[in-house]
């Protein structure tokens, strides 16, 4: 692809990310609620499935915006939740907290440059 087109594609994806960031944070909140329910006992099946879906969607979409480390973190959460048995509390909480930190690194305002994962 020509460099100009490549820049346009990158710019278009950045705009989509800025618009999608609130939804991504809402998905993260779903994961945080799941981690909280895990802390207080065995989560119900529905919240488990909702969390799994949120992790899967985060894993796929974050990668599209160059947020590879965050995407990889979401992928690990998805794998943990998809194992079938009750996920390890410490591992889940640690990964969800890391994902929060990685997403908060990204800027909510288009006026500021976004920090991209390596």
């Amino acid at each position, binding site marked *: 692809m020509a460099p100009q087109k490549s820049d346009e594609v990158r710019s278009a*994806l950045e705009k*989509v990310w800025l*618009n999608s960031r609130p939804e991504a944070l809402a998905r993260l909140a779903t994961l945080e609620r799941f981690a909280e329910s895990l802390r207080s006992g065995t989560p119900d099946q529905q919240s488990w499935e909702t969390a799994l879906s949120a992790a899967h969607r985060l*894993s796929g*979409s974050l990668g*599209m915006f160059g947020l590879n480390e965050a*995407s990889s973190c979401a*992928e690990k959460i998805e794998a943990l939740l998809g194992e079938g048995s009750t996920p390890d509390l410490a591992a889940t909480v640690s990964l969800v907290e890391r994902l929060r930190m990685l997403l908060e690194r990204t800027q909510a305002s288009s006026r500021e440059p976004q920090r991209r994962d390596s």
Partner: protein
Amino acid sequence: MKRTTVKPAVVTVLVADDDPIVRQAVRSVLDVSGGFRVAGEAEDGKMAVDLVKESDPDILLLDLLMPNLPGLETLRAITTAGSEVRTILLCSAISAKQVLEALQLGARGVILKKRVAELVPALEAVMRGQYWIESQSVSNVVQIVQQLAATNTQPSQPQNRFGLTARETEIISFITQGCMNRDIANSLSITEETVKRHLTNIFNKVGMSNRLELALFAIEHGLVRK
């Protein structure tokens, strides 16, 4: 009508993914790239099958994990229905086994979501009649095919069908190993021209038109020794 490899003025694309963020990202990439039009969006597999029938797009971008009907089952339904839409899997992750299954079901390519910036080159390659597997050439696809050859459950003795000669079967075996014509020529102490002649005869006998199709066909029909 049988599709040709001539690229139309505007390539129509159907995007099938349950995540609206992914659909929006794909739409944005295609909008700024020019020459593409999103013909529709499907949020599950069943909807994708219906929309392919309704809108007859040139290309279907298909997610693997979707509600109602998973990606590969969606692809199977579309292929079985006789659609000639060119399908590219757009997924977060995919195993070699799934790639092979997708190719056998008629997929023309695979692109990971994290490489969505390569979407346009992928679509253009597929519209030219080529395959697109993670930015890699057809020979790499054959290497993936070779992995299946190592794990499939075909009989250990090759099946002598389609009127193939022993030398032709030997050449097919090299093709499934990802060998190029020069390698085959060197191994068999024949010229590359002779290899090409053999390949032309093989393609005519089995009804395939390229090395990837031949490799998949050979594995599926047990034409090569494990």
